[in-house]
């Protein structure tokens, strides 16, 4: 009986090896197959003792060759390991790592999203003879061992919303959160409020969660992973992968095919993307790697679960220690852990209110420091010093002007207001006493505006429209040809003459209002007055941090063609007299993709706006997502920039996002989507994944117009749709009506 069981286990181990290494020729696998077959053929003739001896030998051989095969694992083999049905799942972890748990986010298929598992768990810690049960909130994707209803850990928007809800519960209860990332990527359907929008909401909230968050990554598929992976400590399983895109997806893009790419190209892409735990550790994107047994952890590797338990306890202890400090002896032991089991040192995981603030500061600093060398900084040493000095001066200025002077001014004006109101109530009129009323004249209104508002229009001098006078006119308007509106068949639009359309009409169909795409320069000059703006950080340029084969050439070509160093332009300008900081994502530069340089520029722009108390506008002329050639250095920009946005909004700024043409994937699922004020230029498309990707990943066909701005508006993703010609006016209106408390011009 025992022999049968052990033989079956050996067969299963061999099948697993074959699954992992796929059709690749492998001597070790062939030897194991041969020896096992030989044993099975001879088995009926052998006695019990011989059988036991043979099985012992075979087990030894398996262990030896598995160790050898471990060294031969390619990145793609690791992808196959994490996707294997025998891979450990979150339920295995809950069973073996925690001492007790109760699922609270639904049970199996009876859940808003069966792929998202949420549980309250406890970890028992020893305190002398006393046992303390420390509660934690465990959140993660559950792939299930072949359970189809789990959707392979691809989470729908409501699954992520559920996770977010329980994160806030944990925050209320002041207990740490352990997240386990087991997802190939988010499920790209645009249910309320949109796949990207929900991930952005998660990131925004996690950026400000005031409890320790520890995440463990096994399969980290881009945006889906980020939805729960923004953490104070990020651990990674040694056989896991963390990537911007699946190797298959990268290969399809690389080959420019809509079909599936061939196996070799997929293998190559997996290598180039630097997706393994070792790579991510070297890039500084995870804190530690947890070693798994040879060929990856499976549900019966109990020793691994013990290691995992020790590591998550240690990570949580470290986060708590960093935020609120421990007693000197425990701190000493934590620093020099040699051979000490973390379970033996007691650390209470609930944080004091001051420690909660310290936790946030450390989290911000941690993410701010990531991918710091993944872009090209062409600034001279002198420029860097000058920028640092200017920043310091601005901080001092801001402190004096806004934090000290303005506070007293506000208090004083508040009191004066009260006294005036009191006097007015008495019918005396403080204003008349102070001589501030001058017979109804309008204060603060410029004379031209006053005359425009109060005098009659003069039709003989032409139409009184100011919006037709464009500073920048598209070069497309120089072509002598007509253009057909895409709505011509349904709306009966006449052909438009290009000089009219791209000139006076600003690219808007005169009949149906369809917005033809316009160059980013049109917006820069006609909306943001770029001619008089001050551009900063132009010297930060996109690089090739992973040394992605062939990418240097493509990047150089993009830089040459656009004259830009990255897809992001950041500048300070004035809109109707109000100073604002603006960041533009430029579609012609590598599809407006975001990498380390763009992330850094955005963070610096947001910091500038925060320090100078200016509103911050983000105009997405178009973005295809995160730049896949930068791998996880690109993905990490999602939490990095979102954290900067969170800090800016918390400090009272106005962050407003405008979408144009096509905006998809990572940026929309993070720093763009987290804005409370998002508007779209008409005829733009907003979403998480395009129709082709949705078809490939889910098998669903989406109707035409699935990502249209109007549908995004109905879903509650954006707050409004603006006509391109009214953009400047609407932005000024937004300056007057939206945003937080710290905008100096109010």
């Amino acid at each position, binding site marked *: 009986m025992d022999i049968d069981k052990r033989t079956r286990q050996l067969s299963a181990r061999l099948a697993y090896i074959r699954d992992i290494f796929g059709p690749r020729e492998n001597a070790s696998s062939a030897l194991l197959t041969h020896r096992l077959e030989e044993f099975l053929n001879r088995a009926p003739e052998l006695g019990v003792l011989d059988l036991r001896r043979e099985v012992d030998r075979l087990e030894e051989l398996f262990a030896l060759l598995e160790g050898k095969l471990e060294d031969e694992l390619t990145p793609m083999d690791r992808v196959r390991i994490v996707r294997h049905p025998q891979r450990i799942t979150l339920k295995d972890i809950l069973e073996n790592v925690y001492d007790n748990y109760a699922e609270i986010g639904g049970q199996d298929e009876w859940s808003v999203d069966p792929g998202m598992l949420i549980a309250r768990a406890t970890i028992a810690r020893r305190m002398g003879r006393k046992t303390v049960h420390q509660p934690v909130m465990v959140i993660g994707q559950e792939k299930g061992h072949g359970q189809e209803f789990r959707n392979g850990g691809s989470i729908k928007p409501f699954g992520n919303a559920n996770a977010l809800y329980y994160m806030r519960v944990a925050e209320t209860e002041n207990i740490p959160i352990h997240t386990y990332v087991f997802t190939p990527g988010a499920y790209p359907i645009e249910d309320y409020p949109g796949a990207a929008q929900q991930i952005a909401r998660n990131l925004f909230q996690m950026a400000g969660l005031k409890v320790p968050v520890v995440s463990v990554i096994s399969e980290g598929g881009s945006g889906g992973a980020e939805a729960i992976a923004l953490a104070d400590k990020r651990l990674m399983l040694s056989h896991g992968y963390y990537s911007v895109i699946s190797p298959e997806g990268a290969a399809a893009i690389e080959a420019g095919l809509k079909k599936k790419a061939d196996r070799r190209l997929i293998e190559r892409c997996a290598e180039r993307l630097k997706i393994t735990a070792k790579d991510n550790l070297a890039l500084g994107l995870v804190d530690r790697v947890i070693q798994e047994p040879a060929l990856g952890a499976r549900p019966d590797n109990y020793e691994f679960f013990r290691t995992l338990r020790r590591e998550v306890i240690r990570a949580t202890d470290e986060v708590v220690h960093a935020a609120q400090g421990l007693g000197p002896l425990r701190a000493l032991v934590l620093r020099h852990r040699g051979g000490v089991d973390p379970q033996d040192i007691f650390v209470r995981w609930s944080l004091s209110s001051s420690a909660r603030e310290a936790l946030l500061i450390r989290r911000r600093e941690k993410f701010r420091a990531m991918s710091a060398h993944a872009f090209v900084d062409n600034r001279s040493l002198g420029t860097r010093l000058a920028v640092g000095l200017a920043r310091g001066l601005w901080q001092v200025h801001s402190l004096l002007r806004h934090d000290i002077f303005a506070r007293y001014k506000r208090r004083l004006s508040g009191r004066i207001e009260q006294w005036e109101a009191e006097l007015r109530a008495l019918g005396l009129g403080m204003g008349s006493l102070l001589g501030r009323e001058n017979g109804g004249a309008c204060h603060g209104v410029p004379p031209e505006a006053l005359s425009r508002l109060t005098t009659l229009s003069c039709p003989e001098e032409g139409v009184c429209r100011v919006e037709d006078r464009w500073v920048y006119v598209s070069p497309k308007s120089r072509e*002598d040809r*007509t253009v*057909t509106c895409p709505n011509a068949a349904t709306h009966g639009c006449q052909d438009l003459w290009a000089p009219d359309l791209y000139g006076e009409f600003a690219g808007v169909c005169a009949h149906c209002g369809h917005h033809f795409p316009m160059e980013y320069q049109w917006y820069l000059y006609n909306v943001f007055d770029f001619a008089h703006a001050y551009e900063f950080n132009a010297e930060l340029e996109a690089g090739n941090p992973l040394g992605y084969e062939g990418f240097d050439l493509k990047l150089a070509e993009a830089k040459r063609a656009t004259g830009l160093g990255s897809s992001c332009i950041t500048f300070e300008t004035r809109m109707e007299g109000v100073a604002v900081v603006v960041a533009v994502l430029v579609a012609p530069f590598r599809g407006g993709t975001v990498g380390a340089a763009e992330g850094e520029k955005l963070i610096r722009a947001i910091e500038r706006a925060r320090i100078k108390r200016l509103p911050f506008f983000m105009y997405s002329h178009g973005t295809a997502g995160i730049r896949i050639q930068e791998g996880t250095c690109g993905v990490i920009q999602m939490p990095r920039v979102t954290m900067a946005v969170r800090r800016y909004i918390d400090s009272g700024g106005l962050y407003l996002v405008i979408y144009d043409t096509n905006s998809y994937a990572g940026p929309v699922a993070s720093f763009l989507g987290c804005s409370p004020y998002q508007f779209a230029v008409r005829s733009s498309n907003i979403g998480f994944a395009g129709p082709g990707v949705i078809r490939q990943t889910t098998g669903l*066909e989406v109707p*035409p117009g699935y990502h249209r701005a109007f549908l995004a508006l109905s879903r509650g993703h954006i707050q409004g749709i603006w006509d391109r010609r009214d953009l400047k006016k609407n932005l000024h209106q937004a300056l007057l009506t939206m945003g937080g408390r710290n905008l100096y011009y109010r």
Partner: protein
Amino acid sequence: MLNVKEMLEELKTSPYEEIEIVTPHTGEVHFVGLKAGDRVAGPGGKWGEKPGSTLATITREKNKKNICATQKGMVTDIVEDLEGKFVEAGVRLLTVRHFLSKDEVIARILKKALSLFCAPERAKYYFVPEVDGKIKAGGEQSVKTRDGMEMFIVSRMKRETPLSYSGPEGIIYAVYFQQGDNVDAGQPLIGVCQESQLTLIQDVVNRVQGEWEELD
């Protein structure tokens, strides 16, 4: 009285519809290498979002547009003399012979044989309880219609008003709407046929279902 059998015979002798493809506006025409007898596809995709086969192109003011097939069928008559010439709007370029499917044949017959009662405005429509009960118990054809008979409830913005049937007497042959769904103005609600023609119509429909050969 309508002779549905004769109508079917007529359809059998020419089991297709000829669609003339004409220029939408002035411009220079170029054909795309189609010959008479070639098969072309109509709009495809789940939502008809993919345009049909390109039949020709027309260029006006350096703006080249495809002229696409609106139905699947066979190209029969191409005016090849127009190749590369500047033409006026409405000039015939070619003809597509679209072979009728069973459903199309049945729809044509019913359109002529039935008297349609259409929705007067966009609203949700329901049968009055009496008619609804009859339909549920004995099927659509158990309801006899007469002019002025109160038959529908029109529900618009949660305000319900009765609607009377107007048209010839007969029995309901088909119901074209789902109760509770919005129906656009002008869309048919029911098709009514004379009681005497019911068997004949059913017979013809059955024959079409069984015998009609789809040539596409």
